[in-house]
C-alpha cells in the first residue's frame, strides 16, 4: 500500500511519457499472450517514448527541477547507502538529548575502504515522515552529525555527506535547544576537518539546514537537485506576499545544479538517468558512485593540513563583489563591476 502511494505520484510534465510507457507495457502483455504479433508497434512506440523523454528532459526549467528534487520516489540517503556502500553500520544519537532520525549517520565501506556517512533522511509516506520529520532536523540531528564528523576525524575516515532537506526544522523546541548554534557549530567544525569531505546534494538543499552538513572539499549536485538560500515558496511569500508564486521565485533564485555550478557553489553536476533519478535509482547511484570515487581519489593525495586548507580556500573564494582602491602589496587593486573576484586579490 505505501509503495503504491509513492509509485502513483506523477508530475504533470512526466505524464505524457508515463502514458506512452503504459501503452507499451500493455502491448507487451498482449504480445506475451502469443495471440497477436505487435513487435513492430512496440518498437515504434518505444522510439516515440525515447524521443519524448529526451525532448522533455533536455531543457528542464527551474520549477520542474524543483519538483523532481522533491519527487517522493526519488532515491534518499539510505537508498544510496544501500546501493553504494557495504558493511553499513548506523550510529545513533547526539549523546545529549535524543536520536534525531531526520539525519542518519554511520560507518560503512566504499570500494572496500572505510568511510563515515552522514545524510538527511526523508520518509516516503506519512508514517515514515512522522519519524523522519520530512527530513527537517532538530539541533540534535546536527549534533549527532557533528559527533560522527569528529569520530571520523579521529579515525582518519573520509566523510561523505548526502544533502536532502527542505530546511532545518523551524519550531519552538528547535529554537529552545539552539538550532542556530547547532548549524553554526557544524559549519565551523566542518571547515577545519583534517579528513577528506565530499558533500552531495541529492535532492533538496534547503538553506542553513543543508549547509550544516555541506562544507566539503568537494560539493557535488545531482542534475535535478537544488541548493537554495530560501525555499521558492518562502521567497515568494516575502516578495509577493503570495506562496503560490513559488514557480516565479524558483527562476529568480538560480538554484538549480547548473546554476550553482556556474556560481562556483557546486564543483560538479552529476548526470541523472534520463527521466530523473527516481526512474532509474541504480543508474543514478552508478553515476554518483563514479563521481565520488573520482573525487575521493583526487583528495587521497592531500595530507590532513592540506585538506583543511583546501576546504578553506574553496569557501574563501565564494561570492561576487566589486572593489575599488584596495592596496595589495602596495599596488592599488580595482575590480570592475560584474567581474568575478579573481585570484589576484590574495
Amino acid at each position: 500500500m505505501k509503495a503504491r502511494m509513492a509509485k502513483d505520484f506523477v508530475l504533470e510534465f512526466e505524464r505524457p511519457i508515463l502514458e506512452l510507457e503504459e501503452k507499451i507495457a500493455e502491448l507487451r502483455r498482449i504480445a506475451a499472450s502469443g495471440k497477436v504479433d505487435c513487435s513492430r508497434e512496440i518498437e515504434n512506440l518505444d522510439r516515440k517514448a525515447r524521443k519524448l523523454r529526451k525532448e522533455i528532459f533536455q531543457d528542464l526549467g527551474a520549477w520542474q527541477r524543483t519538483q523532481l528534487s522533491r519527487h517522493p520516489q526519488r532515491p534518499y540517503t539510505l537508498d544510496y547507502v544501500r546501493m553504494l556502500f557495504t558493511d553499513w553500520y548506523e550510529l545513533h544519537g547526539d549523546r545529549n538529548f535524543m536520536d534525531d532520525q531526520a539525519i542518519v549517520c554511520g560507518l560503512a565501506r566504499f570500494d572496500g575502504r572505510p568511510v563515515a556517512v552522514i545524510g538527511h533522511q526523508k520518509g516516503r509516506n506519512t508514517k515514515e515522515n512522522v519519524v523522519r520529520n520530512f527530513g527537517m532536523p532538530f539541533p540534535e540531528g546536527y549534533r549527532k552529525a557533528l559527533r560522527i564528523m569528529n569520530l571520523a576525524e579521529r579515525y582518519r575516515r573520509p566523510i561523505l555527506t548526502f544533502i536532502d532537506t527542505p530546511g532545518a526544522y523551524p519550531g519552538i523546541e528547535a529554537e529552545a535547544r539552539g538550532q542556530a548554534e547547532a548549524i553554526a557549530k557544524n559549519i565551523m567544525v566542518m571547515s577545519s576537518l583534517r579528513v577528506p569531505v565530499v558533500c552531495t546534494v541529492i535532492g533538496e538543499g534547503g538553506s542553513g539546514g543543508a549547509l550544516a552538513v555541506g562544507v566539503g572539499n568537494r560539493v557535488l549536485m545531482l542534475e535535478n537537485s537544488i541548493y537554495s538560500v530560501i525555499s521558492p515558496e518562502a521567497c515568494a511569500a516575502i516578495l509577493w506576499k503570495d506562496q503560490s508564486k513559488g514557480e516565479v521565485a524558483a527562476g529568480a533564485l538560480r538554484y538549480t545544479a547548473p546554476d550553482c555550478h556556474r556560481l562556483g557553489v557546486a564543483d560538479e553536476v552529476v548526470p541523472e538517468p534520463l527521466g530523473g533519478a527516481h526512474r532509474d535509482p541504480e543508474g543514478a547511484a552508478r553515476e554518483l558512485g563514479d563521481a565520488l570515487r573520482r573525487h575521493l581519489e583526487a583528495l587521497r593525495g592531500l595530507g590532513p593540513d592540506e585538506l583543511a586548507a583546501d576546504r578553506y580556500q574553496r569557501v574563501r573564494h565564494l561570492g561576487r563583489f566589486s572593489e575599488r582602491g584596495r592596496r595589495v602589496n602596495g599596488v592599488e587593486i580595482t575590480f570592475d563591476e560584474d567581474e568575478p573576484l579573481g585570484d589576484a586579490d590574495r
Partner: protein
Amino acid sequence: MTEHRSAGERPWFSHKPGVEPQGAERRDNGAGNLWRKCEGCAEILHVPDVEANASVCPLCQYHFPLDWRSRVRLLVDEGSFEETDRGISPQDPLKFFDSKSYRDRLEETQAKRAGKDAFINGRATIEGRPIWLGTFDFQFMGGSMGSVVGEKVTRLFEYGAADRAPVVIVSASGGARMQEGILSLMQMAKSTAALQRMRRLGVPFVSVLTHPTTGGVAASFAMLGDVILAEPRALIGFAGPRVIEQTIRQKLPPGFQRSEYLLDHGMLDAIVHRRELRPTLARLFGLLTDPA
C-alpha cells in the same frame, strides 16, 4: 540573572560636535517632531533625552534600535575608529528581479545610507586595547548578508588573526540576503571558516547580539562568540517568529526568542545594557588575554 540587567547610573556619553548621526539615520519622524512613544512602556518620551541616553528609554530601559555611527561612538574609544574596506560594493550575480531589480534596490538604498552595503568594519580601541570592530547597518536591506557583508566579516576575522587583536561584531540582521541567492548562503560558510582559523590562534571573538539577529547570521558566526552578549529584549533565533507560527499553527509564548529567553536556555553568556557594553568588553578582553 546577570549584574548587567539592571540599568547603570552614570551618564554614558557627552555630545561632541562633528560626530552627529547623519540626517537620514535619525529615527525621529522629521523636523520638529520631538516626542515619541516608548515601545517598551508606552510613555511619551522627549527624543533628545532618549538620544542622549544611547537611544534607551530613561524610564523602562527599552533599547531602541541604534544607527551604526552611534553604535561605534558608544562602543569604542572616542575618535579611535578607522573604517576599512570601504571600496567593496555589491554586484547582482543572479540579475535578481522582484517588484524592482536588485540593482535598482541597491542604488536606492545606497543613496539613503552612508555605505555601499549593510556592514561596516574597521579598527578601533576599547579602553586603549586595539580591536577589530564590525557592525551591521540594519537600515540597509534589513542588515541582510550577501557577498559584501560576508567578505567584510571574513576579512575582519583575517585581520584579527593577522595582528592577534580581538574581534567584536555587533549583529542586527534578518539573515542571508535572498537577492544574492545561494552565494549569500555561502557567506555563512566563508565567514565561519575564517572565524575558526582565528579561534585556533587564540584570538578572542565577542559576539554582541542586538535586535534582531536571525537566520543565516545567527546560524553562523553570531552564535559562535567565545563570549556572546546580547542587549535586553533583542529577538534572536534561527527561524523568524512568523515562520514558526505558520509551521506549528499556534501562537508563540510571550518572550519567546528574546534575549532573556536565550539566556535562560543557555545560549548567551550575559545580557548587557547598552551603556555597559564598552566596559564589559574591555573587562572581558583583559580577562581573556592579559598575561597570566
